[in-house]
């Protein structure tokens, strides 16, 4: 009996390198199998999907990629899934960022990839507005006229020169929030709060937020208060959206690794606590 307690006690001092190796294996091994585990879709993701699905061909969505490579494994699959949905429905896409240059890189990369898949053309089906500093000033300025803030696009060309601009701008030739059917904020920080508190509250534009898992609890109150039409939280949110689109992307594959690593963490927490109980019991 004493020997069993000794073994249990040793669980509390496992070499951290062994834990690293176990976490690595639990993450890597499931990625070798192209499988998708069936998961119940979260209600907030379903609401986001339905909000997108209700839009008609030609409607304009504005996507703000406010994240960088450091959170791309969570948010990039969201961008790709949402763009897949948007281009399947022939929506017009405007892309911008408040997240300096990183957001622009990630947004353009995802948009180019999905647009190529659907044979969509720049200037006809989508425009990359780019980045401008000053989150609040940019949002308020865009309410009057997008050209106040984005006179030129990411390539330095006037946004008015594109056929899509003429198509989506109002009869007065002004493009602002009234021409946008839905705003999608993909957030790694608190910029989503500004989209909700300024653009949704003041101008009434419907908003969907896709956020990293760390930020997700901060956005749930906005979903509960109906200030958000829907929400995608972390890799699970992206995987849910992929499931609704019936595609197996990175997020769906990643959720198998999530399952394995979470199981490992639970086992390690259990063993650690057991070890602590054993130590107290013996002393």
């Amino acid at each position, binding site marked *: 009996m004493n020997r069993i307690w000794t073994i249990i006690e040793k669980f509390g001092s496992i070499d951290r390198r062994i834990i*690293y190796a176990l976490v690595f294996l639990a993450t890597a091994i499931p990625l070798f199998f192209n499988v998708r585990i069936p998961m119940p879709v979260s209600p907030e993701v379903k609401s986001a999907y339905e909000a997108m699905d209700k839009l008609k061909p030609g409607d304009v969505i504005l996507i703000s990629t406010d994240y960088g490579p450091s959170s791309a*494994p969570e948010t990039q699959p969201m961008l790709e899934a949402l763009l897949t949905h948007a281009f399947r429905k022939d929506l017009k896409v405007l892309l911008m960022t408040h997240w300096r240059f990183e957001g622009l890189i990630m947004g353009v990369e995802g948009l180019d990839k999905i647009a190529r898949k659907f044979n969509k053309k720049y200037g006809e089906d989508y425009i990359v507005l780019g980045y401008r500093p000053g989150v609040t000033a940019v949002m308020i300025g865009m309410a009057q006229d997008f050209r106040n803030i984005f*006179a030129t696009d990411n390539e330095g060309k006037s946004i008015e020169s594109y056929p899509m601009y003429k198509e989506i701008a109002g009869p007065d030739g002004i493009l602002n929030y009234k021409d946008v059917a839905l705003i999608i904020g993909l957030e790694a920080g608190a910029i989503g709060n500004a989209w909700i508190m300024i653009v949704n509250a003041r101008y009434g534009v419907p908003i969907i937020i896709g956020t990293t898992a760390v930020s997700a609890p901060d956005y749930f109150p906005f979903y509960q208060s*109906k200030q958000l039409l829907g929400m995608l939280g972390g890799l699970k949110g992206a995987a849910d959206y992929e499931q609704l689109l019936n595609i197996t992307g990175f997020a769906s594959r990643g959720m198998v690794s999530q399952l394995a690593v979470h199981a490992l963490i639970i086992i390690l927490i259990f063993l650690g606590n057991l070890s602590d109980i054993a130590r107290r019991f013996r002393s």
Partner: protein
Amino acid sequence: MMDIIGVWLAAFLTLAIMSFLFGDNPVYKFVEHIFVGASAAFGIIVMFNQAIWPYLYEGFTTTDAFLKITTYIAIFIGILTLFRLEIMNYVAPNLTWISRFPIAFVTGVGTGIGIVTGIHGFVFPQIVATFLPLLEKHASAIEIASNLILVLGVLASLYYFYFSMEQRGILKGITRLGMVIIMITFGAAFGYTVMARVSLLIGRIYFLISDWLHLVR
């Protein structure tokens, strides 16, 4: 060819950063410095191309007199901030106070907008969202229970931070409930944080075994 070099470089940088798991080392330090330097350089270029140049170009070339004047005002305010530079302490130490004007301007505008948007876009809608029916005729038992938990949770959590009265008897019970609700919130946030960190690891490992080693497709 450039793609292959890029992938190998990214793989080396990933492994070098991960080497920190086994302790601080020169390779990690080297890559850390590359990251900081490259980010700063790239940031300056993008900031100039995407922010400074378009605004200046538009402001100088426009025929709109109002836009032209506001551009000159913005440039003037921008120049005033330069008085805060370290070098000004040596060149003109008596003039560094000038930089307080643009800071005061930005703070004033930011506070003004922040108060209005905070109350209108956050405080009011969140308060309204807690006015939930506790005894609705057609609501299911789960809906009523959910509403009850939310309302009681909000009240108990708020009361937990009420320090103007000694918390005894029933009041102590409410404080305890508030603490439990707050702890559950922290637990949920921690669970999400674990998921986030694991997702980042999945992203990097997927890159290594897919894009670099081509072991999976």
